[in-house]
């Protein structure tokens, strides 16, 4: 007896170090790339604005995206290059022409412990398409994107098992993985119990951060979700601080009051880069800024009986050749912008690089003359532009572009308006025949279709509708479910749209961030939101 117990004691003494080593708490790492980090740090991030809602259904514009996507996630995630990656869904594939199947990730829970599974997805789909809301007795919200109207071909959805969902459509829908997959998922039991107002005020998601406190228009405090399924952020707390003025954000960063700022004006970036305590990081965005000119034919639209002056493709091409994009990018944006001749953003799925529009004022003049506009009959353009809406650089760029158009004989009248008036004019279609407006088009989703659909339907953004050949090609891209074939069709469409020149392409935005050198491994995404997974703060 004694020997056995002594044996036990000796055995346990010998094995204790091994057991202890095996039980070493797998806590957060204490060093990254050989540099000691502070796992309990709080990082303060300065943003230009607060979000107005945390319920993803209400809206996901650029600022809101930043807040919402820290807490919520969708089936499809994005990698650092903007390519689709597995998120809450491990994989997705078409099954035949009219069905998509999503295989869901296992072992994921919401911040309050509720498990994520097929029932969650079905509930969310009901919310997107506004079905069965009375069954769940939750309020209907006025959403920015109304799925049932924008994607009426999605018919029904079902669960195959707890981790597999199928969605059926009435026609082929090659981009379903995108518009469904990028929408953040909300918890079913929590939303039913607390209502949509509760979800909006105290959001609960599956994301890497939990929302702890929200002082409206001032700050939002997040805490790391230690139960997160993916790469954890390597610091514990994060505060999003609202600082509307760009100069104030920069001052705060310089003074060490915040650790990272977004929305650095391009003209300030070089000076920040020279500060050894700071680092500047940039990424192209899915934001394309253009001049939309009135190319609507009188028979298709209620244009007051006249063709838009810019319905001739030669005129639009001429305008594209008249703009010296290199000069704009270098001088106004300090290199922080891209010239892109494709209508699709360079970081979208399905983007195919196109031959850039050369800067050729002589040829522009010739084209205009061919179309009938000479010195005796000059082309006029009444250009609306939303001053102080898109930022200082946009406001500087528009008059410069107007001057370039004047140099090829176009008589441009700049009319600054507030953004609401611009929206109203575009929505009501009340641009005069020689009218146009400067605006930037954001892509909310990953797929190129997000951009290409602009000229396919009657909508406020469509001022140069597709001619029949292009319309046929566009329709084909919307029906081709095979990924490789579709990419080829998309490339072809982009080439033709480049030549069709429905808009005057100006630049694609590059978003500039700046942060303290103590913030490690921060990579900006080509998305509207920032990603802090894997980011650490030096001790």
């Amino acid at each position: 007896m004694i020997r056995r117990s002594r044996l036990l004691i000796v055995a346990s003494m010998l094995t204790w170090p091994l057991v202890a080593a095996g039980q070493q708490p797998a806590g957060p790492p204490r060093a990254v790339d050989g540099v000691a980090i502070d796992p309990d740090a709080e990082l303060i991030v300065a943003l230009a604005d607060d979000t107005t809602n945390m319920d993803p259904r209400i809206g996901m514009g650029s600022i809101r995206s930043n807040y919402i996507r820290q807490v919520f996630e969708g089936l499809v995630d994005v990698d650092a290059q903007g390519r689709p990656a597995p998120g809450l869904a491990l994989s997705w594939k078409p099954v035949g022409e009219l069905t998509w199947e999503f295989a869901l990730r296992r072992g994921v829970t919401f911040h309050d412990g509720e498990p994520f599974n097929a029932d969650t997805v079905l509930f969310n789909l009901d919310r997107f398409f506004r079905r069965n809301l009375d069954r769940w007795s939750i309020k209907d919200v006025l959403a920015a994107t109304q799925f049932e109207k924008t994607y009426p071909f999605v018919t029904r959805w079902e669960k195959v098992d707890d981790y597999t969902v199928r969605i059926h459509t009435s026609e082929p829908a090659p981009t379903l993985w995108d518009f469904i997959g990028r929408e953040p998922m909300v918890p079913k039991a929590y939303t039913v119990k607390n209502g949509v107002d509760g979800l909006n005020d105290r959001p609960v998601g599956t994301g890497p951060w939990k929302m702890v406190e929200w002082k409206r228009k001032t700050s939002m405090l997040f805490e790391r979700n230690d139960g997160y399924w993916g790469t954890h952020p390597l610091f514990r707390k994060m505060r999003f601080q609202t600082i509307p003025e760009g100069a104030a954000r920069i001052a705060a960063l310089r003074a060490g009051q915040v650790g990272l700022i977004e929305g650095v004006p391009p003209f300030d970036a070089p000076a920040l880069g020279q500060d050894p305590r700071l680092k500047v990081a940039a990424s192209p965005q899915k934001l394309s800024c253009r001049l939309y000119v009135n190319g609507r034919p009188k028979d298709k639209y209620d244009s007051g009986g006249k063709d838009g002056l810019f319905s001739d493709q030669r005129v639009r091409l001429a305008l594209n050749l008249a703009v010296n994009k290199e000069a704009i990018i270098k001088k106004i944006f300090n290199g922080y912008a891209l010239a892109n001749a494709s209508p699709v953003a360079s970081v979208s799925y399905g983007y195919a690089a196109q031959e850039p529009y050369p800067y050729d004022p002589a040829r522009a003049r010739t084209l205009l003359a061919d179309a009938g506009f000479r010195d005796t009959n000059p082309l006029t353009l009444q250009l609306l532009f939303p001053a102080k809406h898109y930022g200082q650089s946009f406001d500087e760029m528009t008059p410069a572009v107007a001057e370039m158009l004047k140099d090829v004989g176009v008589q441009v009248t700049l009319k600054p308006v507030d953004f609401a008036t611009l929206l109203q004019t575009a929505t009501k279609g009340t641009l005069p025949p020689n009218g146009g407006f400067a605006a930037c088009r954001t892509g909310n989703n990953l797929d190129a279709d997000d951009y290409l659909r602009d000229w396919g339907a009657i909508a406020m953004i469509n001022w140069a509708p597709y001619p029949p050949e292009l319309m046929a090609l566009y329709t084909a891209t919307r029906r081709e479910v095979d990924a490789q074939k579709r990419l080829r069709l998309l490339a072809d469409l982009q080439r033709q749209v480049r030549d069709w020149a429905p808009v005057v392409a100006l630049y694609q935005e590059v978003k500039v961030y700046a942060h303290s050198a103590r913030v490690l491994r921060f990579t900006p995404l080509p998305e509207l939101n920032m990603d802090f997974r894997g980011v650490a703060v030096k001790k």
Partner: protein
Amino acid sequence: MIGLARDQSAALGLIVICVTVLMAVLAPALAPLDPVKNSLVDRLTPPMWNAGGSAKHPLGTDTLGRDVASRLLYGARVSLIVGLAAVVIAGVLGVGLGLLSGYYRGWADDALMRLGDVQLAFPVLVLAVAVLAVLGASLANVILVLGVTGWITYARIVRGETLSLRQREFVEAARALGATDGYLLWRHILPNVLPPVTVVATFSVARTIIAEASLSFLGLGIPPPAPSWGAMLDEGRNYITTGWWLALFPGLAILLLVLGINLVGDWLRDQLDPRMERSM
């Protein structure tokens, strides 16, 4: 001012004002370059005494390559026109209404004063923002807004003076002799009302010039590419560290002009109505 008598300060102020008026009037002749034409190549060149500057642009260029000196000269026009026109509108409106209100009394007087109270209780900037949003921002509309919102001050002063004047003996005497109301208002009451009004108007011009700059700062003033000092200040505020000359010169111009006007106003007040509250 330190050590100088009131008269000398006022003279200094008058000189500043005259110089500004000359600048404004002679702008086309004096301005070296077109204030509106932009040129990306010349963007943000510093004033000529700095490295990188040139005599072609003595005070440097702005973010679109436009000559700052030329814009400063033409901008004087805008500031002076807005200041004077808005005050004239407010003055004529306010004095007229104040005279009628104080002379005839009755329900019209009550209604007018109530209207004035309502307008005073409405935050001025919100009113300006809303009206400009409706009408659109332009030189004429800015003048209109600043003019129409300013009538109350004059109306109140004039009404007060009219109320006391109408009781005076010379008015009664004139009326006994058969003078009409119009004659009385024009020949007897108005001239007595003008001195305080002049003083208020002078200070108003200064305040209106600052108000126009404030509206431009909020993005509501004279739309680009028109060169107004307020708009130049607004364009320059993002470049305080890298393009300090953009905000400094128009800011200095506003400061000097307004200072000059205030000095002249002080002197006028001493001359015309020393009893008056030194609160303007």
